[in-house]
């Protein structure tokens, strides 16, 4: 933490030394990134801009492979539109798809809490199998650990994935180019609000379903239709965080048009009620793409032909380079900045 030098003026609170993990470090926003940059990347990884992509690209014997891993924890385990099993398969399939790779195989690791009913596990495994079939990917290896009651919340799943990249495919958050068109594959925020509403403490119910889905077929259709520069699935932290990351990796200015952002009315209403910005709410079956301007219409048309891209929409474009920022042109003609989610998504007080 940098030392405080305020030259005469100081606010009342001291800087907090962040020397302990808090829940916000897992929110997918600024704190998660901070943890990555301060601790994991210097300790374990490479600090190249592409190391912040959803999957790593490795080259061996002239073949390019994509590799990624993702751990899944969700309460409740089963929610409208999905469950932890479907989430675990789709999350990793999508991370591979976001570098343009065709998923080959997954591994899965289970951490089970003592006392978990077999029936729960059976349902989760069946759901994983169905999702893997839909994605056309095999689950080829696994591991199980059981921890004493209270040491884990029912069931955690880690999945790792391996994919192959076709020749010529080059997709990274660092590849945004001036003029690129920003396309989102469907309505924003469905998953986050569906899961929140499924937790009974909120006291309201919706008919919303999570959008959790494998996006590899959608991506294949897009790559066949035009030149795609960037792909990202806006999971935790939402669309705002994904676009802010892309802007930073590419040092680009991205402008969004508020009126073009697709939301389900129920998501918008729930966000109004809770004081959430829907741009920060998680998605599990959506992607945002930056596409070469001349190819945007063709890519959009191809997306709309697929099951998970029916509601795809153009929402903005890359309007500058050299300055990393995301601007939102508001419906009433104003403009504001869109930044990463700072910590946990918190409901407002009044």
């Amino acid at each position, binding site marked *: *933490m*940098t030392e*405080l*030098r*305020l*030259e*005469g*003026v*100081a*606010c*009342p*609170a*001291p*800087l*907090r030394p962040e020397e*302990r*993990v*808090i*829940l*916000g470090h897992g929110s997918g926003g*600024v*704190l998660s990134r*901070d943890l990555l940059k301060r601790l994991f990347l210097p300790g374990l990884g490479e600090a190249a801009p592409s190391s912040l992509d959803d999957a790593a690209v490795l080259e061996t014997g002239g073949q390019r492979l994509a590799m990624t891993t993702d751990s899944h924890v969700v309460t409740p385990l089963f929610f409208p539109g999905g469950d932890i099993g479907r989430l675990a398969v789709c999350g990793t399939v999508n991370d591979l798809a976001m570098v343009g790779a065709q998923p080959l195989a997954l591994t899965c690791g289970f951490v089970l809490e003592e006392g978990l009913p077999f029936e729960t596990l059976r349902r989760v495994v069946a759901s994983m199998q169905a999702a893997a079939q839909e994605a056309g990917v095999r689950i080829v290896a696994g591991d199980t650990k059981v921890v004493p009651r209270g040491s884990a919340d029912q069931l955690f799943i880690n999945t790792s994935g391996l994919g192959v990249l076709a020749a010529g495919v080059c997709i990274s958050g660092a590849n945004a180019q001036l003029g690129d068109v920003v396309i989102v594959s469907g309505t924003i925020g469905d998953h986050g609000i569906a899961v929140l509403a499924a937790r009974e*403490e*909120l*006291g309201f119910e919706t008919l919303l379903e999570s959008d959790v889905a494998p996006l590899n077929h959608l991506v294949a259709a897009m790559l066949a239709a035009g030149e795609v520069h960037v792909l990202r699935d806006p999971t935790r932290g939402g669309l705002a965080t994904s676009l802010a990351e892309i802007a930073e990796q590419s040092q680009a200015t991205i402008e969004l048009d508020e009126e073009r952002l697709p939301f389900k*009315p129920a998501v*918008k*209403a729930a966000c*109004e009620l809770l*004081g959430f910005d829907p741009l920060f709410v998680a998605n599990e079956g959506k992607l945002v793409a930056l596409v070469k301007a001349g190819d945007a219409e063709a890519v959009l048309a191809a997306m709309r032909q697929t099951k998970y891209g029916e509601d795809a929409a153009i929402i903005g474009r890359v309007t500058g380079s050299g300055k990393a*920022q995301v601007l*939102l*042109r*508001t*419906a*009433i*003609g*104003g*403009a*504001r*900045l869109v*930044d990463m989610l*700072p*910590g*946990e998504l*918190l*409901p*407002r*007080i*009044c």
Partner: protein
Amino acid sequence: MKYLEEYRSPAKTQALLREISSLITKPWVIMEICGGQTHAFLRHGLDALLPPQIELVHGPGCPVCVTPLEQIDKAIAIASRPEVIFTSYGDMLRVPGSTKDLFAVRADGGDVRVIWSPLEAVQLAEANPDKEVVFFAIGFETTAPANAMAALHARQKRLRNFSLLVAQVRVPPALEAILSSVGNRTQAFLAAGHVCAVMGFHEYLPLAKKYQAPIVVTGFEPVDLLNGLYAAVRQLEQGRCEVENQYQRMVTLTGNEAAQRSIAAVFQPVDRKWRGIGVIPQSGWGLRPEFADFDAELKFEVNTMTAPESPLCIAGEILQGKKKTSQCPAFRKQCTPQTPLGAPMVSAEGACAAYYTYQEFRHD
């Protein structure tokens, strides 16, 4: 969404902006009292579309921002006790106390829970008879009725393990403190519609008269805010100083009397300290003596805790509209929503956080 979309209409917004521009002849300083209004101005990019003669200053109406340091320290002290389940609205967890925040208490093993309604805290107390459940009752007149209901329910259920840490604040005394302060620049006010939905707006009538300042009650959408600004500018230009109600779909002169009765049953006006500003007489609500058993400060003996705030901090001046966020040298540098130095950077509705989130550093 009905009652929402029509108040975000680009056509109506543009028309109102034109009307304000044609009405205004000289510069005016207008304060929006509530953080929700500040947030709406910046979220929609509305402030930059206003005629240059209007200077908006952001008032003290964010309950997270004005909760004093010592109250946060008390919350942290109580929440750190092993027998306590500490419950709070989410925003408060990130507010820095003297040494840490409630998130850090949770990471240290404290049982700190975000709740959506104070009645959940009462239910928790019923379900956990071997624990002490404490609710952090903060907020303006908007949260007071529900917070009061929690105390009433707890008494009805004869719960012995439920208490409230109260930091409840009231708008009218704060407004009077701003109006009567030396160096006040604000000439008219946009009063917060949701506060007035509970309390009505009769409390503002003597203030407008005494201090010769127009007060307009507004909602929180662009069309609401512009209607409010239009009414305020019209009064200023015409030399009038009245209370007008722009938010008639929600607000009446006398407000929600059932809600006021539950507040009065549980709370009484007390002097309260505001972060960065100091003690404002009668500006808060405290528990009435008959609810002393539900007073967490007494139960956990933290009522004498104090925490000094730096006299150099400009948060107080920002909350009174005397200085702008851009005049703070720490803004966007050492002070960010991840590392808030002062309370206005903590809540999404704090003036500094709203600027940080939505605007470039363009006001200097």
